[in-house]
């Protein structure tokens, strides 16, 4: 499997090493996001995960996706999360236990799923994608407004609904219980 890392410049050992290193780091950071008890630190680990995933995207020749990942997730969403953490008073994170009574069945199910997935991937052969180190921005733009126009529009409706929901729930309520405008 090691030989088939689809790096942009062929299949060298160095590329494979860098790819797996980034993947391993991203996984380790993702585990830390969950196990870290302080929400703020967890957010910082999340930043590391997202940045490393951006690196993986870049490695696979998806330059636009890598840039968008950095701009939107690392730059935008994460800053929002950090703001939310700092503005809300999350203090009791340290005392709360991070597992509950269901941990044993949950662990069993997770292990079973992990074994199934690993086994499935091991048994399958993947056709190596033909990746060219060409800029993808133009092609993506064409796709979004031609073949993918419908999902693009549908997703904009879904996001609009989510936005409306966020506004609805965060609006201040008038004393009579009806939702009013935030002043």
């Amino acid at each position: 499997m090691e030989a088939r890392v689809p790096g942009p410049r062929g299949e060298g050992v160095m590329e494979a090493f860098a790819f797996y290193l980034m993947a391993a780091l991203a996984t380790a950071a993702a585990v830390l996001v969950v196990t870290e008890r302080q929400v703020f630190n967890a957010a910082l680990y999340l930043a590391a995960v997202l940045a490393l995933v951006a690196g993986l995207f870049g490695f696979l020749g998806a330059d636009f996706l890598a840039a968008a990942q950095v701009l939107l997730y690392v730059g935008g969403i994460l800053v929002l999360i950090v703001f939310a953490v700092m503005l809300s008073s999350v203090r009791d994170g340290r005392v709360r236990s991070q597992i509950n009574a269901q941990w044993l069945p949950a662990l069993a199910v997770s292990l079973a799923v992990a074994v199934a997935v690993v086994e499935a991937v091991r048994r399958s052969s993947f056709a190596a994608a033909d990746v060219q180190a060409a800029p993808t921005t133009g092609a993506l733009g064409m796709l979004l407004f031609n073949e993918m126009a419908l999902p693009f529009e549908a997703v904009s409706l879904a996001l609009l609904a989510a936005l409306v929901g966020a506004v609805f729930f965060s609006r201040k309520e008038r004393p009579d219980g009806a939702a009013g405008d935030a002043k």
Partner: protein
Amino acid sequence: MIESARLLKPEIILAGAALALLALDVSVGRGSLKRWALAAALASLAAALACLLRFPDSGRAFGMLSIDEFSHFFKLVSVLGAGLVLLLAEDDDSLMGGSAGTFAGLVLLSTVGTMLLASAEDFLILFVALELTTIPLFILAGFLRRDLRSNEGAIKFFLMGAFSTGLMLYGISFLYGSAGSTHFQALASVWSADVPANRTLDLVGLFFLLAGLGFKLTLVPFHQWVPDAYEGAPTPITAFFAVSRDAGVIVVMLRLFGEFVPIGRAGLTDLFALLSVLTMTIGNLTALRQESLKRLLAYSSIAHAGTLFIGLVAANPLGREGVMVYALAYTLMGIGAFAVVAAVARIKGSDSLEAIEGLAGEHFGLAMLMLIFLLSLSGIPPFLGFLGKFYVFAAAIEAGLGWLVAIGLLNSVISVYYYFRIVHKMFFRDSRILSLASPANWSLRIAAGASAAALLIFGVFPHRIASWVGQASRALQ
């Protein structure tokens, strides 16, 4: 592309109306808004309905949607469901009060998602449409912002929904990695190849996909969110929950497993049958012990999902027709039953089983309507609910799944017990709770009355719907 857009007229009308309604809520003063929002939403639904009936175009849109008679049927069901739900909500001040535009707009957006699902034959649009249909439902479930039950139900629904979407996406990524395309057709070539290819990855992908869709289909063991979300949501929205399931999610599965991935060849028949048995049995057994009308109907809704699923397990044209009849029937009788619950909750100020005691003595019309819905829900002729059950059971027998039918019939008997417990309370007990308000308003009466009439008419004259459904299901291979 213009051709493709032309095929999506009903969806575009509804999406446009939803955008206008959402804008209306912020720009217009509060006073006259309520009537306008309801009227505009109903008008757009009527326009979409007319579009579906008068111009039943067919073809492929954007290479991802199959617009055919099969999808038309389910689109009609979802438009009908949305219309009935809006009528139920008409006098509910918490929904149609200050945020009427938001409420109606979200209902329409969710309907657009369901309609896209009914045509989807590509994983990309399946995912996007599923999000479009559930995100408004998350918000609508928590629409009563001051009600703790509403908050709890919405949060549970949202977390479970997000998790199941993640599982589904993970599965889709496997299927994409194996087939190299997100179109269902690519999967068909994987499963139809005569060469015994290694399909482990596809199978794992299908399992994840099934887990994700199972949440939306309220299949056991993915059903835990249902009772809380159904109980906490405003009653008209509770009635709306099942529409996206019966007219959207199950349709995608019928398409995927009927046309592209034969469940027999994928070796999934036993698993699907087991899911169906679990869903029917656990739904019904838990419904026996409920003391809240909404929770009881929520568990019975789970049980109905199990019966509906039999049509998919049978994997034959008759099963497909069965799902169509059952979806129409459940939409009518489910919304109808919740309409009566909403009326009772308004009159008595409670949705416990106690509140419906003595309903026949005080409001005979409501009690008779509820009787019709309950008879139809328990599958007693001559109502449409019976026809739906008859179809799916016949399909299962044709597919050689007699044991599944036996369990299904046994479950019907269990369900008769708890449905008739409600009937008994309505007709043979005296009311112990003081009435607070006047009986239901005109729009709720229209919605419930029309549903009951449709259940009776289609049930007594089944040949009309049988020929319609038979013709429509032939659109699929």
